[in-house]
């Protein structure tokens, strides 16, 4: 075991060496020394960024098994962040970006030059609102995640990373929450996109009354998640709902749409797909209208059948839109289903439809455990960052239409 006294030194030194190596190797030989120095500084400070404010408590000898690993993760996170910032700095120093441009923004035609304070006047309201209502609460969440804090009392106690460790505790069943979230999100996306593409493929060509069809298909986008929850609640009601009535008419056995733990997630998925279908159709139609006719015509002449034309020509050309729809649908399934779930199942039965956001609100505001809820919000935050990073990366690879 490493003695506790050495921990602060190690959590600065190891990332510092790694940072120096990474930035040193990545930069041009001319500036390698400066890069290594910046990398060492960034890595060292980054390693301390998230651990030092907590007094390196997760490495104390008496803590549970999982805490040191969470501590290592925090070191990696902080170091990664600052090394990334350092790499941006290196672009300026290495001459890839002019420093005046980096500080002031690009010199473009049409700028208002004389007004020095005007941009600040224009930006201040936006910056103030963002700082007060997004940045400060985010910071507060970060602080709360290390505290035992209850809604309604001012007293708090520092608990290091216990809230994070709780999420890994089988008794908390957070795994089930994560599973339910991804299950609902996955099938909402897959079914919604497949169905949307199929209908759009039928609708995109100039049929008579195309705009009427379009309007009749897209309106559920504007329906609120709450209204969708109410409508589906009554439709899927076990005794009075029309769905079970239709099943009985067909001679089947009624389904416990909302009470059966293995079926309730599917009811949520059906409601979500219904609400997002119009949106998917709208965008697939827009995308299909940009698939050049001559490509399909040429493939047809070459003897490709309808399925081959769809699979080898249309589908690849729809890549960017599909990607965009996947992201918007995932975020919809993650966050906007809250109202639907609250009116359909209230997270039940036995937590089967309790998604991460639903659980967060329930833990924080009903069970009043602010620390645990804040910790969960950091987990969601990490997922959102991941999605965003993937988006930025994928944006480089573009599929172009036509010539």
């Amino acid at each position: 075991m490493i003695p506790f006294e050495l921990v602060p030194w190690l959590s600065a030194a190891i990332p510092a060496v790694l940072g120096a190596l990474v930035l040193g190797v990545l930069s041009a030989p001319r500036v390698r020394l400066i890069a290594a120095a910046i990398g060492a500084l960034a890595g060292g400070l980054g390693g301390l960024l998230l651990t030092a404010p907590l007094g390196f408590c997760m490495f104390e000898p008496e803590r549970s098994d999982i805490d040191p690993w969470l501590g290592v993760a925090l070191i990696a996170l902080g170091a990664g962040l600052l090394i990334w910032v350092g790499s941006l700095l290196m672009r300026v120093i290495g001459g890839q970006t002019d420093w005046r441009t980096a500080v002031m923004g690009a010199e473009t035609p049409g700028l208002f030059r004389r007004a020095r304070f005007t941009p600040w006047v224009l930006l201040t309201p936006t910056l103030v609102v963002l700082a007060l209502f997004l940045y400060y609460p985010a910071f507060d969440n970060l602080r709360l995640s290390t505290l035992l804090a209850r809604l309604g009392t001012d007293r708090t106690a520092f608990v290091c990373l216990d809230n994070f460790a709780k999420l890994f505790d089988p008794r908390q069943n957070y795994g089930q929450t994560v599973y339910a979230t991804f299950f609902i999100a996955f099938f909402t996306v897959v079914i919604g996109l497949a169905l949307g593409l199929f209908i759009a493929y039928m609708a995109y060509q100039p049929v008579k009354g195309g705009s009427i069809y379009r309007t009749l298909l897209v309106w559920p986008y504007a329906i609120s998640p709450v209204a969708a929850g109410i409508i589906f609640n009554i439709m899927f009601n076990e005794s009075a709902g029309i769905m079970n009535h239709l099943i009985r008419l067909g001679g089947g056995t009624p389904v416990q749409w909302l009470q059966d733990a293995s079926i309730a997630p599917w009811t949520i998925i059906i409601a979500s797909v219904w609400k997002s279908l119009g949106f998917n159709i709208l965008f697939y139609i827009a995308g299909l209208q940009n698939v050049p006719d001559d490509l399909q015509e040429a493939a047809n002449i070459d003897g490709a059948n309808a399925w081959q034309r769809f699979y080898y020509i249309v589908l690849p050309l729809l890549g960017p839109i599909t990607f965009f729809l996947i992201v918007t649908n995932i975020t919809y399934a993650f966050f906007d289903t809250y109202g639907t779930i609250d009116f359909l199942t209230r997270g039940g039965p036995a937590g089967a439809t309790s998604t991460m956001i639903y659980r967060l609100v329930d833990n924080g505001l009903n069970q009043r455990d602010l620390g645990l809820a804040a910790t969960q919000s950091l987990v969601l935050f990490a997922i959102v960052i991941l999605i965003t990073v993937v988006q930025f990366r994928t944006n480089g690879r573009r599929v172009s239409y036509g010539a």
Partner: protein
Amino acid sequence: MSDQSQPRVIPLRPGNVSDGEFEFAKPKPVRRRAKRPAWLPKRWYAHLVLIIACVLVGAPLLYAMLVSTQTNAQVATFTLAPGTSFNEHLNQVMVNRYLGEFMWNSVLLSVAITVGKTILSLTSGLAFVYFRFPGKWIIFGFVLATLMMPTEILIIGLFRFVSGTLDWGGTFQGLVAPFLASATGTFLFRQHFANLPAELSEAAQMDGANPLQFLFRVLIPMSWNTIGALAVIQFIYSWNMYLWPQLIMQGGDFQVVQVGLRSLLAVDTTIAYGPLMLGAVIASIPPVIVFILLQKQFMSGFQITTDK
């Protein structure tokens, strides 16, 4: 304007702005062909699929409308004809359960957020495109990063700040203020302005216009489609807000319609299906109408960031 080095705008929820490489247009004017090309699906076939899709998509709403006119007994016997209690339900929902008042509150809330967001997005878009100032990229990054901070995630900290620190619990400003600034809107206008020719601003400056005159006389008249796009997205978003008003308006007398629907669940000891469905239908009318009317602007908002 070359902005290869700038981060690109990414949507985080349905309704945000994308840079998908596509363009929304009316069905292209198709060259008249003597014969229909063989690679298109047959027309009757398309119509059939479309009609089935429209019916499937519309069925829940049609059923909801039907139920909203029926008594519980009629609902339980699955009568597929309009029931007899529409007027009674309407009165119960709108007057006894204050849904009319809640609707009006929702209108105020949505208009306030939509107008506020549009104004702040216009001014910050103006600042990012037509000015150079120290720290521009840092400020830009500061705004950009908020795309990754949906309010839902921050709800605990936000609730503590607004109801605790500011003591705005149960107030209109507590409901509206957190939503007045928008990274999405800022980028939408930034992208739109950047695509306009630079000569516009040069000519305006030569004529002695100040930035605000330029905004009101030149930019806004050229931006109605973008403004419409942002407005429809934001109106629907704020009309459909549920979690935040539910939290911040506890005990307040200014409740919005989405939360007001909750009270319909407990009209009596048993759920009265008719009034509940009627409430859901009525609450959906304003956003659906706005969406259908501004469909074109809605799509054009997604188009702005496409071409450089």
